[in-house]
C-alpha cells in the first residue's frame, strides 16, 4: 500500500523544472507511504551506442576504481556520477556484457536500472529525506515516476522499494496488493526472470519483462497483465518515450490525472497535484478501470517542431 506519482513534461520549460515540481508531489504522499521512496527519472540521454547503468551500494567506497575497471574490460566510460548510495555510469558496452561483468566482478553492487535515459534511485527512509539525498529538487529531465511505500507483505528494504526495473528504460510503480504473485514468481523464474525480493510489485515488473522479451508491445503486455495478474493495482509504468497508467477492473486503488499544455501529471491523491502550476485550469480526471493510458514524447516533440 503506497502512493504513486508521475510527471511528464510536454515543453522544454517544464523539463527544466521537473524535479522542482515533482518533489512536492511525492512529499505529499508520505502519509500513505512512510517506509521508503524511490523514483525513476528519464534524463541526460546517453550518446549513441552507449548505455547508462545506475548502481547502488551502502558502502561509500564502493565506487572507487569501478569506472577504471569497467573501461579496462568493457569499453569507454564517458560518464560517472555518484550521489549518496547510488552511482550512474555511462559506458559503451551492451547490456548483457555489463550484467555479466558486474555479476562476476562486483556482486556487491545492486543494479537499479539500465537504459539510455533512465536512472532509478530508491532507498529506505522517509520520502523527504530520500529525495534530499538524491538531489531531486534541482533535477531536470523529460519525465519521472515515483513511489512512497507502506510495506504490506514484505520487508522494508532498499531492494523492496519501487520503482522496479522491467527492462531497458522500463520500470513500474504499484499501489495495491496482488494475490497470485507467488505462483507467478515461480513460473517467471522458470522462464529466466530474476527476482531479488518477495515483493508482489517486483513480480508485476518481472511479468512485463517476460512479455516484452517474448515480443509483445507494451500495450499487449499490459493487456496480458490485466488477464494474468490477480488482485488490486494501480500501475504507473515508465518507458523511454513517456509513461503509462493502468488500473485493475475492480479499481479500488485511487488514481487522479491532470493535464495542461505544459504537462501530464498523475498521483494517488489530488492533494499531491494541488501545488502544480496551472492546476486550477488543468483537465482533471480519473482513469477508468482496465484501460491503458499512455503518453509518448514523440507526440509533443512533433508539435514543438511544427
Amino acid at each position, binding site marked *: 500500500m503506497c502512493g504513486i506519482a508521475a510527471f511528464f513534461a510536454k515543453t522544454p520549460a517544464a523539463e527544466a523544472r521537473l524535479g522542482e515540481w515533482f518533489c512536492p508531489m511525492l512529499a505529499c504522499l508520505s502519509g500513505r507511504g512512510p517506509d521508503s521512496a524511490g523514483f525513476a527519472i528519464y534524463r541526460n540521454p546517453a550518446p549513441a551506442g552507449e548505455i547508462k547503468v545506475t548502481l547502488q551500494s551502502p558502502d561509500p567506497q564502493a565506487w572507487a576504481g569501478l569506472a577504471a575497471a569497467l573501461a579496462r574490460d568493457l569499453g569507454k566510460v564517458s560518464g560517472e556520477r555518484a550521489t549518496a548510495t547510488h552511482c550512474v555510469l555511462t559506458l559503451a558496452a551492451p547490456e548483457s556484457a555489463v550484467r555479466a561483468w558486474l555479476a562476476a566482478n562486483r556482486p556487491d553492487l545492486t543494479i537499479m536500472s539500465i537504459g539510455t535515459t533512465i536512472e532509478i534511485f530508491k532507498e529506505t527512509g522517509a520520502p523527504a529525506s530520500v529525495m534530499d539525498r538524491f538531489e531531486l529538487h534541482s533535477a531536470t529531465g523529460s519525465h519521472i515516476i515515483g513511489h512512497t511505500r507502506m510495506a504490506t507483505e514484505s520487508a522494508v528494504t532498499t531492494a523492496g522499494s519501487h520503482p522496479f526495473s522491467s527492462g531497458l528504460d522500463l520500470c513500474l510503480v504499484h499501489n495495491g496488493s496482488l494475490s497470485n504473485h507467488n505462483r507467478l514468481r515461480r513460473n517467471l523464474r522458470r522462464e529466466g526472470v530474476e527476482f531479488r525480493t518477495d515483493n508482489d510489485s517486483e513480480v508485476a515488473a518481472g511479468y512485463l519483462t517476460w512479455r516484452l522479451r517474448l515480443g509483445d508491445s507494451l500495450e499487449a503486455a499490459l493487456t496480458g497483465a490485466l488477464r494474468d495478474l490477480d488482485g488490486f493495482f494501480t500501475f504507473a509504468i515508465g518507458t523511454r518515450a513517456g509513461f503509462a497508467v493502468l488500473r485493475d477492473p475492480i479499481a*479500488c486503488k485511487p488514481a487522479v490525472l491532470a493535464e495542461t499544455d505544459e504537462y501530464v501529471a498523475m498521483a494517488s491523491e489530488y492533494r499531491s497535484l494541488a501545488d502544480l502550476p496551472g492546476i486550477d485550469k488543468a483537465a482533471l480526471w480519473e482513469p477508468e478501470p482496465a484501460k491503458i493510458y499512455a503518453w509518448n514524447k514523440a507526440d509533443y516533440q512533433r508539435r514543438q517542431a511544427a
Partner: protein
Amino acid sequence: MSFILPGLRESATFDRHVIHEIQRAAETGIYDIRGWGAKRRVPHFDDLVFLGASMSRYPLEGYREKCATDVTLGTRFAKKPIHLKIPITIAGMSFGSLSANAKEALGRGATEMGTSTTTGDGGMTNEERGHSRLLVYQYLPSRYGMNPDDLRRADAIEIVLGQGAKPGGGGMLLGQKISDRVARMRTLPEGIDQRSACRHPDWTGPDDLEIKIQELREITDWEKPIYIKVGASRTYYDVMLAVKSGADVIVVDGMQGGTGATQDVFIEHVGIPTLPAVRQAVEALMELGLHRQVQLIVSGGIRSGADVAKALAMGADAVSIGTAALIALGDNHPRYDEEYRKLGSAAGCYDDFHEGRDPAGISTQDAELQKRLDPILGGRRLANYLRVLTLEAQTIARACGKSHVHHLEPEDLAALTIESAAMAGVPLAGTNWIPGKS
C-alpha cells in the same frame, strides 16, 4: 452416542461427521452456517504452562500483596483513553444476533467489573449505551445503523476488518433474526436473508484506511481511541499496517473466535489459531518499538484466568471474550438439554445461534424465549465469571512474583508440545528449544 461394534472400523477421512455433512449438502444445496467457532483441536493456551516461583523467584502473598490488573487503552493519539479495572473486555456481538436482554446483561456485568462491552454489526441501542459504562462502537463494512451521534457517545471506535471466525468473509445470514426492530435499525426489509459486504464501501487498503481514521478522528474531535480489529491471518504484517494506518489499539481474533455465524468451512479452514497470532502481533509491535504504546487486545478461545494470564504473558495488554460470555449467561447449559434435543442438538453441542431459536433466550429475537434471560441475574452471572477470571489470573501472576499482571512475560512460560513451542515462541518444557529459533 451410538455404539460401534468391535470389528467395525470407521474411516478417519470419511468419518460419520463427514458423511453427515456431504449428505446434508446433497439434500439442501447450501453450505452449513453455524456459530461457536472452530471446534477442532488446535494448539492453544492449554499447551503452555507457567513456571511458578521457586528458589530463584519468589511469590507474592495472595490476598495481601497487591497484584494490580488495571489497563489503559488508547494512549497513542486519543484525548480520552479508556481505563479498565480488569484486562478482560466483552467482544463485539450485535443486537440482532443477541436479544436486548442479553445485551443489557453484558452491559451490567461489564460495568460492575469496570470493563467495556462492544456493539456489533447492527449499530448501537440506547439500552446498551445506558447499561455499559464503557462502550466500544464497531465500524463495519455494512455500516448498518452507523451514525455520528452514536460515534460521539461511544467511548471508543473499533474499525472491523475481520473476525476470527471469518477473516476476509462477508457472507449471508438467514432471515429468521431480521425481526422488525432489527430490520429498522439496519434499514433492511424484515425477514430477508441478509447479505453482508466483506470490504468497506469507501476504503480498501491501509493507505486509504489511514485517511478514513483521520476522518473518524475529525468527526469526534480526536477524543476517542480508535481500535482496528483483524481476524488472525497474516498477523505480523496486519499489525504493522494497522499501526502505520494510525490505530491506537489493535484487536486480534484467532480462529477459535466463535461468535460470528458463517459457513463451517470458513470457521474451520480459514485463519490461524490465537496462539501464534498473539506472538506475531507482539513481535510486530516490538519491532516498531510500540509495544504497550499501541495496545493489543486478543480474543478467540479465552476461557479461564489461565488463558488470560498466558495471553498477557505473551505480551497482550488485554483479552476479549465472546463465546465465554454467552456461556456464562447460560448458553449450552445442561438445564436446556431437552429443548436442545428437540432442535436436533444437545447441551454442549448447540451451535445454530443464527437461527434465533436459542432455548437459553440469549441469541434470539423471539419475545417468549427472550424472557428466559433476566438481564439483572445475567449481569450478575457475567460479573461473577469476570471476577473469577481476574482472580485466577492474579493467582498465577502472584505465583510468578508479579505485582501487576502486565509484568508477566514469555519467559514465565514453557510449552508442552513442539507445535505450541513453535507457535508461541516459548521453549519446550525442560529444554531451551524453540523450534525455528534455537
